[in-house]
């Protein structure tokens, strides 16, 4: 799949960094490490974690959800949706060709032939994925807006 190629990962990482810089700027110093963690284990974090009663622990343990993995997952999901449902890219196309299509689609200076319903679906996909990865409601809205904001709709 294109999203698993190095070119695909590079673009997803670039888009994610853009989202993170708008929504969670403070995470940028650890962005690269968290991206690496995400690719090692892309599963959503365990949001039901409860503090254990470990005698060696502090009793103050908590799970702070980072938005970087949420952004990575969100962007991956959107890109996959766009490729399959909007651009209807075929597997036979080269990686470079697909990369070019994706970059053009998410270039705010290049209007795209996309309907409002499709845009809303993209936003919903983004929002749900962000929430699945632990982002709060406001944060998920901001992230979805940041990503969908990259798409220019043709009049």
């Amino acid at each position, binding site marked *: 799949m294109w999203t698993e190629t190095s070119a695909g990962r590079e673009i997803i990482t670039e888009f994610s960094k853009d989202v993170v810089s708008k929504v969670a700027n403070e995470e940028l110093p650890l962005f690269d490490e968290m991206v690496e963690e995400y690719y090692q284990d892309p599963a959503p974090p365990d949001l039901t974690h409860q503090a254990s009663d470990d*005698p060696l622990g502090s009793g103050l343990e908590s799970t702070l959800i980072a938005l970087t993995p949420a952004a990575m997952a969100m962007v991956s999901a959107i890109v996959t949706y766009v490729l399959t449902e909007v651009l209807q890219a075929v597997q036979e196309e080269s990686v470079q060709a697909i990369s070019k299509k994706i970059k053009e689609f998410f270039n705010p200076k290049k209007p795209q032939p996309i309907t409002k319903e499709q845009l809303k679906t993209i936003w919903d996909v983004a929002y749900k994925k962000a929430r699945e990865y632990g982002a709060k409601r406001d944060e998920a809205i901001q992230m979805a807006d940041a990503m969908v904001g990259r798409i220019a709709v043709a009049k």
Partner: protein
Amino acid sequence: MQTNIPAKRQLDPFALPSETQVRFNLLIVAALALSCLFGYVFIGLVGEPLILSPDEEISIAAEMLQKLNQTDQLEAVLEEISVVFGQRFLWSLFELGGICIYVLIVFGLAVAIYRRHPIRVRRQQNLQLFDPNKDLSFYDAIQNLINDTNISPIPTIEMNKTSKINGLQNGLAFGIDQHPALGLTAGVQLQFLKEPLKFKGFILHELAHIFNGDVKRTYLSSAIWLSFVLLGIIPMIIYIAITFAQNVEQNLKLIEAAGVSRIHLITPQFLLLCFQISLTLAIVTFIRSSLIRTRELYADWRVAWWSTKIGKTLADRLQTILERKIVSAKQAEVKNQSGTINPGKNSREIIKLLKHPWRYHPSVQKRWQALQDSTKLFQIKGDLSFLAGVLMAYVLAGTTVLGPLVSGTVSAGAISLIFVMAQWVIASNSVIVLFIVSLASLILFFVPLLAMVAVLFIPAYFIAWTIGTQVQRYTLETMVNNKTKSYRRLWQPAILITLGVFVGLITMPISVYQPHLSQTFLPFLGWMIIFVFVTWLWLSYVHFFTKRILGKHTGASPPKGKRILLNICATILLWVLYAPLILGAMTIVLQALNPSPSSLSPEMSRNFILFWIIANLVLLVIALLVYIFAFGFTWLATKISQSKGLKCPFCQQITTQFYAVGQVCEHENCNRDLAVWVYADSPTSYPKTNSEPENEQLKI
């Protein structure tokens, strides 16, 4: 009496030794007492019975006296007697030495386990030294906090190499002596970026554990517990199981030979011993878990204590962490309640309740409440009073066994020496030699008594220190908050201590007391009522003189020397008050045993018991008289030493105020706290003393 009482303030939990230290001492003494008892049982498997019965003692003494009276070969008899007692001395020394070696092995193993804990922790937590170049700002932030708290030596920073940045934020403090370390998960790096103030609160909490000395107490207590289980509990279970199996085998032979079965006697005894072992283990485990739980409250307060020096920001942030946890816990509770009926919920609640006394962290709510109001750390805790009582029972049982052994060993050696010296007198035929030997004999006569006193005094000091410290904290709180009926409230710990003693006696495995309580319940009930009263007297003594000694201490540094003196006086008084009670308990047990030495007539054996009862009552009266004397003497001594009145540490003028704690100086141009040392939020603008806390000036 002038009373200038300032507005309600936060008491300094570190003004007196912390409850963590108290519980740690409790664990040490419990482990020591139980190890001595278990060692006595195990050594008994190797050798002859350690203590002769009264029959045997009397017959040996009578035989010796007969020989001395009847023979004209005095020297030969003296030599024979000295050899007999010499052999007894060596054998008792061997057994006593065996017990000491066993105790040393238990504690030696504990120390070895403790010293290896950094290796274990690093392996379990996958820790490796954190490379500052990976995240320099994160590393520097931690170093700055370490510098600000003036912790020495400086802990190393280690990171869990398998943890994720987008994962748990957790940490622990560990390390031995001069090599403390902070182990963190990678999630703490994220917390540093996203919630910097909470990050500071979290790191300071871990540093507080190092500063408070919790690392050594935590890991050493865990090591002692493990060593006690491996070398005490497990061998004891094996021993009981083997003994039971042997008894069952003998019972089968008895059935075969005579058609008689004793299984109805053997089985309940076996089950009782199993229950007692389990309960003993539960009590020791509870002491350990309560220690680990208590340290968290003091670590939170250390952060607050540091924070009060530079402003309340960090204490507030630690409170915020705790507040958020309470809110999320409450939300989860509401969600569970509003959902469908969960069939497993009740059993989970029951398991949670059962695990409650053994959990390692206090509830978030409790931590938050303690942070908001430090007087919570100045109450006499019910469980501590109860455990102190259980500990007293352990020490009592141990003393009843080991005391005569120590005393018997020393007296056997002393008697042997006396008879050797007597031979020297006969051989030398010198008056000077006779004088020297007489003097030495007189001194040696008191040596066994001194040995018994030493055996009783050391655990008594720890017990007095444990409960005494709690009473001191309670007293300071009542003084600061002007509480009345403070003596009446001491009945509760007195009752709980007594209950603890009772539970300890009946649950102590292989104890001389417990098999007989079912037969001697009523006498023991009377004994317990007296015990409660005597304990209340002792607690009142500590309370009264804490007010008059510690309560009159002015200045910034806590009254360390005065506290030690008060503890020593309290220890001596504890021993004096409880000695007749110990004898009383032994009398009750002797009654149940019905000791009629075969060499005594029934009339003489009845008088024997009556003698003990009267002797105990007389001793109790003497103890009460000594109490009145000690009370009066201490009162007089404090009156004389404090005749000059209180001196304000700020304006240096003498005040007419009776107490210092909870009072401000009566002089109009001053109005400052007389006892600054009691408060957590005291300013530092006063004349510094040599024992000034080092971490006063913080800058973050």
